[in-house]
């Protein structure tokens, strides 16, 4: 059949298989049986193992030890033991190791690529041209951060022992995203690869030995979800980094709540892919191919929701279908396929289920003719591999499951829009916010949409572009924390002073909300709330007595409840204009605030003395520090700004620092004026609007402050103040799904509660775990972390050229 004369007629591509001999030999040298990698050694395979099969043909390729609690414990202890000397290793020395790893990955690139393809089912083209080069790139980039750590991150140290759990869709790439910054920061690691795809991590372990990385610095425990759970529950870890599903992310958030572990989560997505009428349509069609038919659609940032402007929709769908007819699905080792196999039969079943749901929801299914019609499976039952054809749904309503749930397969769901505003609204109508792809030749339309996307990554006229210098991570329920770039390094660092922090003095229980004044002598004044720029009475209709240091009632304050918080959040959302103001405009407001505060200096000092029992000298010091802090953030307002990266020629990445929109803040009792301002100011300086509960012991300071806010042109709704029991109000805030971030400074129990309850909408939380900080100290009271926590990063990829 394959005679040259025949081929001249049919002009088929034929077979172009990449040999997997060397990869199979590598597996054979381990007899196909693997344990863990602990303290620089491969452990013997244990009695309890799990089977790893290649999705190419369903055949078993290896067996791996199923990591137990005791395995995790052993790895964690090893990593802990290795930490002291590794953290002391100079940045330069660590840079040398990272550079060596980058070079070793390049030297063994084909072995890694082929193994990855056998294990995961993704085309060799992708592992060879995308995955593995990006892995090397990541190690190079982080060799740089190791070298520069001391000068670029003064006052910081590595967080410690890291537990890292990675997914199966980009096995080695996700390893590099986790491992490289941790090593650069001087952390030690226990990594758990996904149970479907553990092979390349074992080669990487070998490379670590080859690079001479000290034993114990990098460890692997293989296993499934139970092993991952054992890692997240283990007390030794100072940091957990997870990439995977939003559901598991939520569980990890809850598991680690209150443990003091740092956490970064890179979770699911349902990212929009918007095609405007002024787009290069053929290129946008190709963009869809790169978005959803890349890695069989098993990509968290895949553009999976196509939004097409009505006027061009028909033309676009016609071209897209024609393109789909040309796609080739098959053995991923063949160099002429666009899609290989889905990772596992379970995942294939998930995809099929979603597609069936879509069909019954009334959406229009379309698959290429070569796939055998709308049966949803290429090639019939004789194939043991997990193949699924490229699939298009049109007329997908936003309410349909197809438009809302992540499918994690080669399925694009399309709907139309009428105007640019509607495109943005549809794009943001999702619990997720990982990425967005925008196709328009109009600079105005593209940038307007990019700015309005609630997503961590925006690609203009491009899609699925990745680089170590551009942080990766999402908004909303796509998780928090970034991987890559400077902001990614911050996830593995903590301020130096923290290890010496002492415990906070617990707040006294709030007095009963009953009339308590008896001397008939005090000022007749009740501190109200400040919501939407207005003084408001508590919804509860209760007030609680405010005591001075001597226990004497000096006033009363409204007792806030759930509804007050709800109203405050609504008011904060309405004040969106604040976020749109320029840094200079916000700076002017803050300087004016300092000016107005200064004119009431004596009054504030007297109030501090009255409330806290501090002497005048101490109260004056707090007041002066407060004024200083207002100036500090007025200064930063127009300077803590985004920057530009250039990861490729003809490509600029605008790295923006955007506000979270609405942040909840629970203030501590100590230094009630200074701590309130130290928390409120960086938040509003960066354009956030806040719902803040002042010191529960000294709420009067907030009542004084809102009068100053009023006279300082701070727009109503930017700062919303509700008084009452810190933890009770924090509980409502943590459970409020329209708050994006929550800063909590109180007791250990409250810290745990805030982290636990924030799992609902995966707020970015910042809690003190019951630790005190010296608000007067520059590093503790106004360090970089305040501004860093006040922003979220959005990277806008903007290619250009004529």
């Amino acid at each position, binding site marked *: 059949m394959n005679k040259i004369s025949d081929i001249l007629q049919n002009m088929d591509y034929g*077979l*172009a298989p990449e040999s997997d001999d060397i990869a199979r030999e590598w597996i054979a040298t381990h007899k196909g049986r693997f344990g863990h990698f602990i303290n620089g050694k491969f452990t013997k395979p244990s009695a309890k193992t799990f089977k790893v099969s290649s999705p190419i043909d369903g055949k078993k390729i290896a067996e791996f030890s199923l990591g137990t609690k005791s395995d995790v414990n052993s790895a964690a202890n090893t990593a802990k033991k290795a930490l002291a000397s590794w953290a002391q290793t100079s940045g330069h020395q660590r840079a040398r190791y990272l550079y060596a790893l980058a070079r070793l990955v390049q030297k063994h690139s084909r072995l890694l690529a082929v193994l990855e393809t056998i294990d995961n089912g993704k085309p060799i083209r992708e592992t060879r041209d995308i995955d593995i080069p990006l892995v090397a790139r990541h190690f190079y980039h982080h060799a740089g951060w190791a070298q520069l750590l001391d000068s670029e991150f003064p006052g910081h140290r590595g967080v410690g022992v890291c537990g890292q759990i990675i997914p199966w869709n980009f096995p080695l790439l996700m390893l590099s995203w986790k491992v490289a910054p941790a090593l650069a920061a001087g952390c030690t690691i226990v990594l758990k690869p996904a149970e479907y795809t553990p092979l390349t991590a074992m080669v990487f372990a070998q490379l670590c030995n080859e690079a001479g990385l000290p034993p114990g610095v990098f460890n692997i425990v293989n296993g499934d979800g139970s092993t991952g759970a054992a890692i997240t529950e283990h007390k030794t870890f100072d940091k957990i980094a997870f990439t995977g599903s939003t559901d598991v992310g939520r569980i990890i958030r809850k598991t680690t709540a209150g443990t003091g572990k740092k956490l970064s989560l890179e979770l699911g997505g349902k990212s929009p892919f918007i095609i405007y009428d002024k787009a290069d349509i053929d290129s946008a069609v190709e963009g869809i191919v790169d978005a959803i038919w890349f890695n069989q659609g098993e990509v968290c940032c895949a553009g999976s929701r196509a939004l097409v402007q009505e006027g061009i929709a028909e033309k676009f769908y016609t071209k897209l279908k024609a393109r789909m007819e*040309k796609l080739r699905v098959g053995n991923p080792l063949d160099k*002429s396929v666009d899609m290989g196999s889905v990772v596992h039969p379970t995942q294939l079943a998930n995809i099929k289920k979603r597609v069936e749901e879509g069909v019954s929801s009334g959406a229009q299914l379309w698959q290429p*003719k*070569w796939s055998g019609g709308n049966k949803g499976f290429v090639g019939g039952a004789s194939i043991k591999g997990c193949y699924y054809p490229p699939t298009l749904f049109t007329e997908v309503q936003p309410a349909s499951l197809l438009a809302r749930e992540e499918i994690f397969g080669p399925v694009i769901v399309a709907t139309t829009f009428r105007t640019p505003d509607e495109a943005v609204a549809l794009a943001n109508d999702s619990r997720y916010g990982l990425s967005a792809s925008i196709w328009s030749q109009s600079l105005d339309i593209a940038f307007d949409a990019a700015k309005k996307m609630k997503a961590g990554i925006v690609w203009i006229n491009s899609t699925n572009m990745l680089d170590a210098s551009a942080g990766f991570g999402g908004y909303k329920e796509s998780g928090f924390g970034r991987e890559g770039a400077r902001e990614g390094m911050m996830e593995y660092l903590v301020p130096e002073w923290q290890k010496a922090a002492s415990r906070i003095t617990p707040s006294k229980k709030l007095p009963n909300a009953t009339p308590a004044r008896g001397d008939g002598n005090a000022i007749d004044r009740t501190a109200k709330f400040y919501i939407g720029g207005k003084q408001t009475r508590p919804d509860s209709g209760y007030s609680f007595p405010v005591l001075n240091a001597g226990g004497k009632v000096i006033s009363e304050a409204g007792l806030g409840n759930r509804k007050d918080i709800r109203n405050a959040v609504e008011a904060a959302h309405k004040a969106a204009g604040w976020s749109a103001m320029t840094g200079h405009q916000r700076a002017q407001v803050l300087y004016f605030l300092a000016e107005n505060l200064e004119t009431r200096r004596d009054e504030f000092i007297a109030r501090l003395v009255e409330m806290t029992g501090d002497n005048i000298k101490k109260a004056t010091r707090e007041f002066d520090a407060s004024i200083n802090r207002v100036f500090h953030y007025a200064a930063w307002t127009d300077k803590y700004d985004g920057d530009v990266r250039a990861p490729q020629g003809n490509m600029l990445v605008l790295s923006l620092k955007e506000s979270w929109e609405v942040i909840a803040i629970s203030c501590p009792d100590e230094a009630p004026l200074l701590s309130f301002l130290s928390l409120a100011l960086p938040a509003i300086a960066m354009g956030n609007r806040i719902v803040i509960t002042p010191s529960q012991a000294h709420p009067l300071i907030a009542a004084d402050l809102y009068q100053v806010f009023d006279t300082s042109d701070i727009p109503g709704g930017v700062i919303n103040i509700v008084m009452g029991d810190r933890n009770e109000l924090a509980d409502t805030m943590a459970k409020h799904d329209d708050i994006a971030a929550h800063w909590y400074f109180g007791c250990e129990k409250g810290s745990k509660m805030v982290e636990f309850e924030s799992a609902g909408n995966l707020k970015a939380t910042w809690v003190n775990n019951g630790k005190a900080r010296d608000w007067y100290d520059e590093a503790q009271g106004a360090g970089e972390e305040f501004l860093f926590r006040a922003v979220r990063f959005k990277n806008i990829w903007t290619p250009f*050229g004529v």
Partner: protein
Amino acid sequence: MSTTQTSKADGKLALSPEPQTSRDLVTLAPAFKRNEGIELTAQLFESVEVNLSAVIRRASTLTTRRSVKKQWQAAWLIKAIGIIDLTTLAGDDTPGRVKRLCAKAKNPLRTDLLEAIGLKPGSVTTGAICVYPTMVATAVDALKGTNIPVASVATGFPAGLTPLAQRLAEVKYAVAKGANEIDMVITRAHVLGGNWRALYDEVSAIRKACGEAHLKVILATGDLKTLTNVYKASMVSMMAGGDFIKTSTGMEGVNATLPVSLTMVRAIRDYHDATGLKVGFKPAGGVKTAKDALAWLILMKEELGRDWLEPELFRIGASSLLGDIERQIEHYVTGRYSASYRHAMG
């Protein structure tokens, strides 16, 4: 389309769409309808904009997404020979030089190599010979008894800035001498100035002068600079009746590139979608290696389809390309790397 499943010995499967029908030159010819052109229709191109970076991305992954190896590669290279416009366009061209080239066009591959891959001697020729107008007569004579067409550049090649009357006269001269195909150059100023009517009229006039000879319209894309210009010039040239659109004279600073070619073949596709008419494509200049030829064949198959792998709709303008293909085919046959002196000069 049917899905072919090719089983390998180890049980792995390659699933892929393959063309609906196999076809050959003989079956194509009667069905082939020459592009007669249409009225200048601005809405088909005026609002189109081409995004350079996205086009570059697609072009750069075309050849990483598709690979032809072993006997498929040998067959594809034979196919490539059949679509070469074997070209000599130099100031020192002589009848002797042209005759030598024609001899090579008739027998582009050593007979022993042809036999080794199961093809009949004489069954493979180049797509055409491409010469200056004054060499047409020599070429026609040298190719007597074959089906190899003679193409002539004309219209004041390569700048195209001689007066229209002279350009028309030159076309008529070449056709009168027996040229089957005319490779014209456009007035780049019409494109740079956005004067689409002038471009349309110019190409229409030349097309008329061609008579039965097929017209290839050289856009000189290296001079047009932007891909949006390339797209629009492609569309107007097709509307005016060009049988082929061609990238370059070979004399511009930048000749045939994959991104430019991708833009042009997408224009061909859009024109076909709008009119049902098939227009051919010819990259010229810069296609030097067997690997390059495969890249362009892949481009045609992926973006346009099987029909565009035949000389009626695809040519490559080249002079040195053939030599590399010969060496690669010898390597396929013998497993040994070849040397250029083992193959006859053209």
